[in-house]
């Protein structure tokens, strides 16, 4: 068996015997993914209860209530009839309904008057989105009424005699706002928290391999292990390849196990298996190269630990392992693409939402491999110093 494989086998056995490696490579990402899955279960679909107080019962008020109870509205809200504004306030305050609409007495009749009655939306500071959605839905209903009133006033202001007011009002009532909107889905899957944070956490804990592997190298060196290997007929390259191979196998096993378990147990969407595997492999290669770079740059175990920790947390922060990078400002999103984990997260996000198979991961894989070539090249240049 080639020497590199023997070294890799020994390193892997040693690592798997160490419980902290199992914790970081497997238990931690699964635990955190599980927590995320339970925490967000049932909270990713938007639906709320809207209280309605209809004190008017006129034609327009009835139409408004009917529109709120339409098939389209029912996908977002459930109407809860309430008896009075004070009951509505209490219900919103106590959280029985997220928001409430109050249609005042005489609302329908007031629409033909100069000053129409206002509608009231009872909101809670804890349900602001529900309040805003109610405001927009009701606003869309009143938009036509307001547009008709504005049309008549604009016509009068443009020189139409006041005597035509009744005729204008009747004509305006038949109008329809010429600018309408239609909502369309884009056909992409929604990016659930579990589908984002499963790869995010798997990658975050994979990055810890840099700390572990570089530390173990310096421990080996301090214990004279590297010198003993050098005494054998081994080339420095074989020692490094062996070490790199153990990092590669450990990283691949960790990422693959977390991927399979989070997909099966928590329903995380990692995209097409082939694309996800290729993306994961590219990422593991970059972790190997970064580990080699840390070993090449550091002179002592302490330096390696410090450098690796900075690298792990720096990459995780920039690459979007702690936060949904898409919510961050454009500069942060651009910076993320200079990190291998940021590129991988972009790839996994695209696979989970747009899909697209291999085509979706070609660019991230290219970018990760480019980063690997640069870091790996620098590591090779420094390799001789590390093992001699």
């Amino acid at each position, binding site marked *: 068996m080639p020497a590199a494989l023997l070294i890799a086998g020994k390193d892997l056995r040693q690592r798997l015997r*160490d419980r*902290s*490696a199992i914790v*970081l490579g497997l*238990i931690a990402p699964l*635990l*955190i993914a599980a*927590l995320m899955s339970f*925490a967000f279960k049932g*909270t*990713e*679909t*938007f639906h709320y209860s809207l209280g309605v107080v209809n004190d008017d019962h006129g034609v327009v008020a009835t139409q408004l209530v009917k529109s709120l109870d339409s098939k389209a509205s029912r996908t977002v809200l459930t109407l809860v009839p309430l008896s009075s504004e004070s009951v509505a306030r209490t219900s*919103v305050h106590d959280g029985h309904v997220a928001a409430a609409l109050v249609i005042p007495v005489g609302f329908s009749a007031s629409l033909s008057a100069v000053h129409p009655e*206002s509608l*009231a939306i009872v*909101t809670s*500071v804890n349900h602001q989105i529900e309040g*805003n*959605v109610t*405001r*927009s*839905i009701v606003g*869309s209903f009143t*938009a*036509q009424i307001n*547009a*008709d*009133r*504005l*049309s008549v*006033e*604009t016509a009068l*202001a*443009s*020189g139409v005699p006041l005597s035509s007011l009744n005729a*204008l009002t009747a*004509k305006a009532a038949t109008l329809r706002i*010429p*600018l*309408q*909107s*239609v909502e*369309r*889905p*884009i056909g*992409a899957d*929604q*990016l659930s928290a579990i589908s984002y944070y499963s790869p995010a956490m798997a990658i975050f804990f994979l990055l810890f391999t840099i700390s572990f592997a570089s530390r173990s190298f310096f421990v080996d060196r301090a214990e004279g292990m590297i010198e003993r290997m050098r005494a054998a007929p081994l080339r420095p390259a074989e020692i490094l390849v062996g070490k790199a191979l153990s990092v590669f196998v450990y990283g691949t096993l960790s990422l693959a196990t977390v991927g399979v378990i989070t997909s099966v147990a928590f329903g995380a969407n990692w995209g097409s298996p082939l694309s996800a595997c290729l993306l994961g492999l590219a990422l593991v290669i970059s972790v190997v190269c970064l580990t080699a770079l840390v070993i090449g740059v550091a002179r002592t175990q*302490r330096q390696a*630990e410090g450098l690796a920790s900075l690298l792990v*947390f720096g990459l995780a922060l920039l690459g979007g392992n*702690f936060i*949904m990078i*898409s919510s*961050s*400002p454009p500069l942060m999103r651009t910076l993320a693409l200079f990190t291998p984990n940021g590129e991988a997260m972009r790839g996994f*996000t*695209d696979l989970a939402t*747009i899909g697209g198979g291999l085509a979706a991961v070609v660019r991230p894989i290219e970018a990760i491999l480019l980063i690997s070539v640069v870091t790996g090249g620098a590591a090779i240049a420094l390799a001789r110093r590390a093992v001699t």
Partner: protein
Amino acid sequence: MRALAIARASTRRIIRDRTSLFFLLVLPIIVIIIVGATVRGFSTFRVGVESSNSGPAGQQIVSALDHARGIDVITYTNKKSLTTALARGEISAGVLLPLNLGTSESSSRPITVTIYAEQVNSTQQAAATAVTSVILRQGALVQSANFAAAHSSSPYAQTLAKATSLQHSVPQVGLKTVRADSSASTLPQGYSYIAPTELVLFVFLSALAGGATIIETRRLGMYERMLAGPVHARTIIAGEALTYFLLALVQSVLIVTVGSVVFAVSWGNPLAAALLVITWALVGAGAGLLSGTFFRTPEQASAIGPTAGIALAMLGGCMWPLSIVSATMREIGHITPQAWAVDAWTSLLSRHGSLVTILPQLGVLAAFAAVLLSVSSLRLYRRLS
């Protein structure tokens, strides 16, 4: 005095380690900056617009969207980049304006603006309804201008200008907002959310990871050497507890100061906030001592400590408000001290809470600190004697 000397020596040892210093003092601030910048954007919807070749009327709609409260417009040059950005979550809704969107002719044929949003996505739905409101408001102007132009001798451009000027003076069906409550059950958004939750997270996490120092001290036989002198085990334990307490306190004070000075975070009632910081530092000290006696190797403390710290922070509402999770998860969350600390900060920052209002949380945290410090002291005492 001897306990103080031990605390001084241990603190000096930790501070000399630049990596520890980075995790203790620099990392929390960097996380607050980065995460704070991200969460800040939640108060407005980012709406993507593809309006190339939509003509002047299209640009009017873009301008109306841009001026609408709570909407940030980001322009895209093609439909694909717009929908890709939406799929990735970079924008909350996408607006596709038709080519050469007409103006004067629009009365004869209604024009449809496409809003891309998923029905099941709450943020996208809210953004889509906000966009619809703006489009309808803009459409009302077009309808009024067309109507007036058709019934008078004025040209469309003139009637459009009239409609625009009248839009805010013509009495309309108003929507008044009635607030049913004024006190939030979550922390305010932005840095006021991130700074206190990161304080809770990092003090505990750093203490757990810092347990590695006690293990290393044990390994090096330093405790035995101390015990060989006229030093009692109780003094050593007091010294170590004091070290972790001081470090937690320094870390907290730094986060509070940076939060106030740089990010304008208002920490609420000063006395209540100070007591909360001190109590939480005691909880951190207990957690650090426990980690130092619970784990066998420094590697275990460095690996399992942060993992446990992150997991407890998630359960306790440091990563997201517990109000958005299920009631069961909320109850489970309150098994952790983090949830009680976040509740206390929420009371101080969101509800103008005082020392009296956070007394229950302080009591629970003090109990956590007492249990952690007692159990860890006992374990360390057993190891030393």
